């Protein structure tokens, strides 16, 4: 196809909402002239126009026209902290579902254990959950994971839940402020991974509270009133 496709740098843009004028756009909608402006994420140059390729909020920031998608699949990038679910096991490697279009591959050399060839299942079997980091993503979108690093491990207890990609920043808050408050209020260990999966471990009361919080994120994460609802929920928990 002869279209100039914008890059995949979704992450840098998603936080920079402040001060920019937001407009809800749909695929194919012209959002500006291509001359003088650069096409950012979620856009495409077609003739004289920059068009949106996704449903989302169009904005212009530093001369770059882009669309913050409302709903987007997780695109793995190297360095991401992710929670994966083992999907299949070979003699010396694991394939993990990383909540994205491509499965991640964890080779034995990047796992924290040394096991015999053919005994990979003894450490991690199908359905087990791992906290891992994306080691590299090549041009063919092969995703290699690593579990060598501080804190990277198999998650044996707690609960795992999924939220939409664009709600991650809302759950974390500015500089992780909301997440810190939640950790303190629930007295739970919480990991919000880059692939939209959340792991929570603590006593059953704390986990129940976090389930309510995650439901709030899923149902009201879009709303302008979200921050207020979240604060109210945390406040209620503190006073309980």
């Amino acid at each position, binding site marked *: 196809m002869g*279209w100039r496709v914008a890059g995949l740098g979704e992450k840098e843009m998603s936080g920079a909402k402040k001060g920019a004028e*937001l407009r809800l756009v749909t695929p*194919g909608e*012209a959002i500006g002239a291509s001359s003088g402006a650069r096409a950012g994420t979620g856009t495409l140059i077609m003739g004289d126009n920059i068009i949106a390729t996704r449903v989302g909020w169009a904005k212009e920031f530093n001369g770059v026209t882009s669309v913050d998608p409302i*709903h987007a699949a997780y695109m793995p990038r190297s360095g991401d902290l992710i929670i994966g679910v083992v999907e299949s096991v070979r003699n010396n490697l694991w394939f993990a579902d990383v909540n994205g*279009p491509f499965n991640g591959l964890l080779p034995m050399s990047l796992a924290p254990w040394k096991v015999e060839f053919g005994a990979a299942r003894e450490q991690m079997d199908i359905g087990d959950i791992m906290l891992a980091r994306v080691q590299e993503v090549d041009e063919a*979108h092969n995703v290699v994971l690593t579990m060598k690093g501080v804190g990277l491990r198999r998650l044996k207890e707690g609960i795992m839940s999924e939220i939409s990609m664009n709600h991650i920043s809302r759950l974390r808050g500015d500089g992780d402020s909301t997440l810190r408050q939640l950790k303190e209020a629930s007295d739970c260990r919480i990991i919000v991974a880059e692939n939209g999966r959340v792991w929570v471990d603590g006593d059953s009361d704390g986990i129940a509270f976090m389930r309510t919080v995650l439901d709030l994120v899923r149902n009201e994460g879009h*709303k302008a009133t979200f921050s207020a609802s979240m604060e109210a929920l945390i406040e209620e928990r503190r006073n309980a």
Partner: protein
Amino acid sequence: MGGYGDVKLLREDGLRLDGRKVDEMREVQIEAGVLPAAEGSAWVKHGLNVAVCAVYGPMEAHPRKIQRQDRAVIDVRYNMAPFSTSDRIRPGFNRRSREISKVTAEALESVVLVERFPRSKIRVEIEILAAEAGTRCVGITAAAVALADAGIPMRDLIVGVASGKIEDTVVLDLDKAEDNYGQADLPMGILPTTGEIAFLQMDGDLSVEEYNTCMEYNLKAAREIHVLMVDALKRRYTEKNGGEA
């Protein structure tokens, strides 16, 4: 088609049996995001046709032999519910649904930026709950809204529309009687912003002039439906937002 010349499909006053003008479409209603389990979904009512579409993925393509190294594959499953017509349809894939699934997938591949997701698969499930001629077009419209709702990057939406010929007159959007007893049928998949055609089939014969009129009607209808599609998508998020960002 064309074998039932004695069936009257146009009234004395020039209107069609259901009272529509020759270039008038049946009523269209669209809703986005109707299924909680799907990543994107849509409900489309076009006349008496009702279609629901669910989109899942992009996901790892299985079995591995269907993977393409440079792009995603779109796996479309078009299915008519057994109760969608007056004669019960035997459940399961048949020759017709296989054909429609294939042409729909090809039409959608021309708008979805498939090269963004190599080796993966986007699953599109189209279920026709009620049928009254033109279900493949309704399916394409529903699939486009569901794909956009799922956040799949696309260069445009795609609208399915049809026109045809009854009693030597070109008409827009055939209903059941017109489809069964008419002379020709021309369903199209149109990219409404650019006017490109991603899908075209023809059943029966049309002269060049008749074809051009069909084309004109289809483009007009596509633009009308496009407005409804955009509205459905925007409504979904503005209502969810309480009207704010």
